[in-house]
């Protein structure tokens, strides 16, 4: 309906293969970015920024990470939280060793360690597929989670076993530690997420992304097109773990400030990210945002609904309801819309494009 594509013709391949070839989409993206950078900081409450926007962006990045592996390269992983954890602990160690260095830089660099470990645990994917691989990634989940508890060096021998973020700066502004300003953190998280989403979008639209999708859709044919499965899968593991790692690093540095041993990067967390990907849409970057928003907002919505309708629901039961709803939605989506919310978005967009004709 809002699309007026008549007259938007492409005279170069560069324009034709752009990520957003339609003018209206580019405008839409610009509006969203403008709201994220310019409107939210000035009109949103602290709770909204600190309690919703920051975790939403961080989890969206984690979901992008898993989506690269599962949605684009077709490799199931149940260990995303562990890779987030590796990123978190790397960041913690880095800020300990390099207190003067720009913390944003350290957060980004933190992705390299999980990338390496991701490749290590991705090695079995060369021999095994699908369901078996899921079990292999569980090994990563439990082993790494165990490491976070048992290897005292990781938490600087803190007697409580927890990590606590010291105050660190970037560009002369304090971003971490309990005293950091939430708005500065928001900008840091937003900047990192936008940058990395842009990178991810470039990757999946280019040669490497195509290779991943080839492996996902038909690995035999991919080999006969000259794809080395080893390289393709391990790159996916590396990039995916890098993204999860950076998300994990942001989680402790810019959101939680601290992490109790064995409480944050658990298998439940892995499932949470997995659900974001499934509900949001396999193989869709925007879906990762939808999925993260949905999973994070659901408890808030439930609580609000319970409060506004004066339903006699205890707090713990809201959590239980949330479990049930998520579980049921997973099944419903798999049945009716395996490509998740992103697919609904796509269909909606397509409907608007062919409007007034039926889709």
């Amino acid at each position, binding site marked *: 309906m809002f699309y007026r594509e008549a007259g938007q013709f492409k005279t*170069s*391949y*560069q324009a034709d*293969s752009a*990520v957003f070839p339609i003018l209206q989409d580019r405008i839409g993206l610009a509006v969203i970015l403008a709201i994220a950078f310019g409107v939210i900081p000035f009109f949103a409450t602290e709770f909204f920024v600190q309690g919703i926007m920051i975790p939403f962006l961080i989890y969206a990045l984690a979901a992008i990470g898993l989506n690269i592996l599962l949605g684009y390269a077709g490799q199931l992983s149940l260990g995303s939280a562990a890779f987030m954890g590796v990123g978190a602990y790397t960041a913690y160690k880095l800020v300990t060793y390099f207190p003067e260095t720009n913390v944003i830089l350290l957060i980004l660099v933190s992705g390299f360690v999980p990338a390496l470990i991701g490749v290590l645990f991705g090695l079995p994917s060369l021999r095994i597929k699908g369901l078996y691989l899921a079990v292999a990634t569980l090994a990563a989940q439990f082993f790494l989670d165990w490491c976070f508890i048992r290897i005292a060096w990781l938490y600087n021998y803190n007697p409580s076993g927890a990590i606590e973020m010291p105050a660190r700066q970037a560009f002369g502004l304090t971003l971490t530690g309990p005293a950091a300003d939430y708005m500065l953190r928001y900008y840091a998280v937003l900047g990192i997420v936008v940058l990395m989403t842009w*990178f991810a979008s*470039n*990757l999946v*639209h*280019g*040669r*490497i992304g*195509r*290779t991943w*999708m*080839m492996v*996902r*859709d*038909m690995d*035999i*044919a*991919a*080999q*006969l*097109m*000259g*794809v*080395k499965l080893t390289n393709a899968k391990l*790159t996916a593991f590396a990039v995916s773990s890098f993204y999860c790692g950076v998300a994990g690093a942001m989680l402790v540095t810019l959101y939680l400030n601290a992490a109790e041993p064995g409480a944050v990067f658990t298998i439940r967390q892995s499932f949470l990210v997995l659900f974001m990907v499934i509900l949001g849409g396999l*193989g869709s970057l925007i879906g990762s945002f939808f999925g993260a928003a949905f999973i994070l907002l659901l408890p808030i919505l439930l609580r609000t609904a319970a409060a506004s309708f004066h339903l006699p629901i205890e707090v713990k039961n809201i959590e239980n309801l949330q479990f049930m709803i998520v579980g049921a939605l997973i099944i419903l989506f798999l049945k009716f819309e395996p490509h998740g919310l992103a697919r609904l978005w796509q269909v909606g967009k397509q409907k608007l494009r062919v409007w007034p004709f039926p889709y």
Partner: protein
Amino acid sequence: MTAFVESRPMSAARPIEKGETLLSVDGVSLSFGGVRALTNVSFDIKKGEVRAIIGPNGAGKTSMLNVINGFYHPQQGTIAYKGQVRRRQKPYEAASQGIGRTFQNVALFKGMSTLDNIMAGRTLKMGVGLFWQLFRYGPALNEEIEHRKKVEEIIDFLEIQHIRKTPVGKLPYGLKKRVELGRALAMEPELLLLDEPMAGMNLEEKEDMSRFILDVREQFGTTIALIEHDIGVVMDLSDRIVVLEYGRKIADGSAEEVQNNQAVIDAYLGVAH
């Protein structure tokens, strides 16, 4: 105006000049856990010819292609490609040596568009690394555009412009087959293996596909080995034909020779063994 009379397009069946041997299969045997798929099969493929492999169901035709492709490794026998005998070759190595392939049951990347599927065929020829890919700029973009041009030539050649951006999952069967041929062509193969390129097509689609196959040879000089069930099509298209039955070669020669071969007639009429 006499010149015009002689200048009809060349007929499809006209034999082209025999070239050197491109691929030779020598005494190949293959079995899966005791089940024999191929037994002592030998034949060769010459540069520039259309070579057909025919035979009843279960004759081992697809296994033969898989051996050539490096997907299966024969227990006995050798395969020499461009004069070089190869050992336990991986499929992607076969691809990098110029062997392209289509499949019996269309093996397209179903989550991707026609364009991306054919772009996938260019994978081997692309190589700009992660850094530029992240920015989709500079070498990465140039490479993408350069290969897009090649891909567009193939799209033009196969007359599939109208489905360029359609996800392949939505295409009718005949078009899927055509896209798959396009994907194989994008590799610019020297040897193109076609596994039943016309299976499940109607007469008109078969005619189109036959024309494309001959055009491929004419335009790109590609050597073609194909498996096909439609004997009429095979006879029209191929220069030479290998006939397999129960994993053994029972005949090899021109369409005429094969047609008059008693063993072939028996195999096709289903004489009991």
